[in-house]
């Protein structure tokens, strides 16, 4: 079998804190994505999901230190730090940022901003670049004539599309989308998600969608990884995660999300995530877990294979401890 497009192996990220302390923001994350696949990286604030994809792009601040391997088409991207990453950035891996709507330079035209990455990476320049920019806009559903507009002349949804177009400028193989629809209305969200799905199908793009919104992932992605306290606690096909969750956090997270078609009681998860500037003893979710046993206090669980591509990091997983959510 050919290698996966993206393989992340045991990724760690630390941030320096004052007084020689560290925040261990990402703690040994591993996952893989293939062409045409859509992976959802789900988690609440502080789970490390945004930091993870920033690490893949090498866009972390100087206070960050990184360990682990990131293979893009078999090549270690982080091997020599900034130098290697820079050559992949935008050409193989592109990112759509959180608040991308505000990521445009307000005093430059959209067209110029789309052309910029092409010229920087030597993909195209001048007339060819502008033509490509027009095509990119059309692909995301905006008339090419609007290249001449300034960002403020676009609505929020259009700017998000333009941000996606900009990410596609150098024909990347993988798109990392950080909360692409979070600040958008539900109708516009549907348009953007429809666009992202179409792009992965038509262009064979791989997509990693980072979000806290479970239903969005459920409807858009083929598989997902649930992050908590800097690590992946469960990963697998969407269907398995919803209908057969093996980690209590996954189960509870779904239960905490109200659904249009369910009259179930919506639960909340008491407590708060653990601090990441201190060593975690035992399972990070244990203080909030409704099924914790003595072993959970002492021993930190690692990801174990539960079924077809389905992993979970829970001592009680696989022994019927995950309630089936009908």
């Amino acid at each position, binding site marked *: 079998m050919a290698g996966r497009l993206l393989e992340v192996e045991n990724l760690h990220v630390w941030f320096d804190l004052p007084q020689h*302390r560290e925040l261990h923001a990402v703690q040994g994350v591993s996952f893989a994505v293939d062409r045409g696949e859509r992976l959802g990286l789900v988690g609440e604030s502080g789970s490390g999901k*945004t930091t993870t994809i920033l690490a893949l792009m090498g866009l972390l*601040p100087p206070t*960050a230190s990184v360990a682990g391997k990131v293979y893009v088409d078999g090549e270690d991207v*982080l091997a020599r*730090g900034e130098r290697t990453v820079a050559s992949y950035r935008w050409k193989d891996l592109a990112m759509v940022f959180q608040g991308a709507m505000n990521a445009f330079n307000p005093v430059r035209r959209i067209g110029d901003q789309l052309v910029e990455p092409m010229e920087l990476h030597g993909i195209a320049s001048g007339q060819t670049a502008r033509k490509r920019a027009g095509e990119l806009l059309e692909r995301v559903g905006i008339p090419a004539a609007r290249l001449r507009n300034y960002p403020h002349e676009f609505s929020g949804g259009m700017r998000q599309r333009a941000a996606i177009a900009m990410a596609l400028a150098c024909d990347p193989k993988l798109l990392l989308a950080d909360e692409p629809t979070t600040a958008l209305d539900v109708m516009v969200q549907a348009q953007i998600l429809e666009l992202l799905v179409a792009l992965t199908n038509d262009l064979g793009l791989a997509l990693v969608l980072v979000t806290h919104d479970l239903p969005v992932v459920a409807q858009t992605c083929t598989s997902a990884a649930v992050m908590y306290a800097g690590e992946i606690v469960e990963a697998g096909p969407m269907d398995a995660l919803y209908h057969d969750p093996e980690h209590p956090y996954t189960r509870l997270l779904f239960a905490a999300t109200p659904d249009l078609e369910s009259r179930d009681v919506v639960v909340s998860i008491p407590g708060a995530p653990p601090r990441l500037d201190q*060593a975690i003893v035992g399972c990070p979710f244990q203080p909030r877990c409704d099924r914790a046993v003595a072993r959970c206090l002492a021993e*930190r669980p690692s990801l174990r294979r539960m079924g077809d591509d389905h992993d979970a990091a829970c001592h009680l997983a696989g022994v019927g401890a995950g309630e089936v959510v009908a």
Partner: protein
Amino acid sequence: MTTAEQTAEQTAVPAVALPPRPSRLRRLLSSPVLANRQSLVGLSILGLFVLVALIGPLFIHGDVRAKVGPVFAPPSRRFWLGTDGGGSDMVQLLVMGARVSLLVGFASAAVSVLIGGTVGLLSGFYGGKTDIVLMRITDYVLVLPDIPLMIVVAALFGRSLTNIILIIGIIYWTSTARLLRAQVKSVRERVYVQRARALGAGNARLIFRHVLPQVTPLLIANTVLFIAYAIFAETFITFLGLGDPSIVSWGRLIENAFTDDAILNNAWWAIVPPGVAVTVVVLACTMTGQAMEDALNPRLRSGHLSVRRFRLRPVPGEGLGAGAGTGAVPASPAPPREPS
């Protein structure tokens, strides 16, 4: 569990969620003013000068301007900084001058803050017509040429210290007003101010309990910077001959040195020390004021613009087991990790 129990469990928040608080002393020491080395240095220097200005004159007997030595005597063991064109001890003159210059600095800053602060506050808070009228007034005052105005005032009302203080305060309050207006406008829109209004709080309460405390730190920073300018302003006013003839200030020392042809007599000790004194105090105020402003104005922070350059390191030891090898040390209490 029953629905009631479930509901109770849903609504209650476990009591252990809060970290311990650092002591008051620690909080004071880490406040933006004191924690910054730059402002500490500035404040120390200022403090030193204030001390000299307060205590120094106690050691001086008799009229400082009396002739106690030869004219333009160079620095010696008796006269550490020599004498000026009238034969008076430079050191004593400097000390007396400190008192006046600092007084002018602080007093005119007070006048300016009072006027500018009030204008800015009312303008920013009430907006509408009040804002328009007050800002027009501000514009007119801003346009007035300072030196001609001082000459006119000196000619009409005489050259007294009070007049100088008032003039400096009245001409230069506009920047404070503008700064405060912008701040107040922004704070007024904050949700907690809106919420207090929704509760039924009146304008007075909103201003004094919610808005003012929020803008005071910036106002203080601005005042400190103003003091620097006021001291400098006094210096050049006096130098131009508009100062109070009966008062000894650093500006007067420089003026005297000039009119007495100190330079022709190679008497650098008559001109340089007062100039240096003014410079140092102005520098100290500026350092403090700037440091305070940097600490208080979040937009000035540009950490997020730093170059992206992460560091690589080896993967931690034997996996994550008991958290070994992460290098994280449970240390003194850190602020809770707020959701991003």
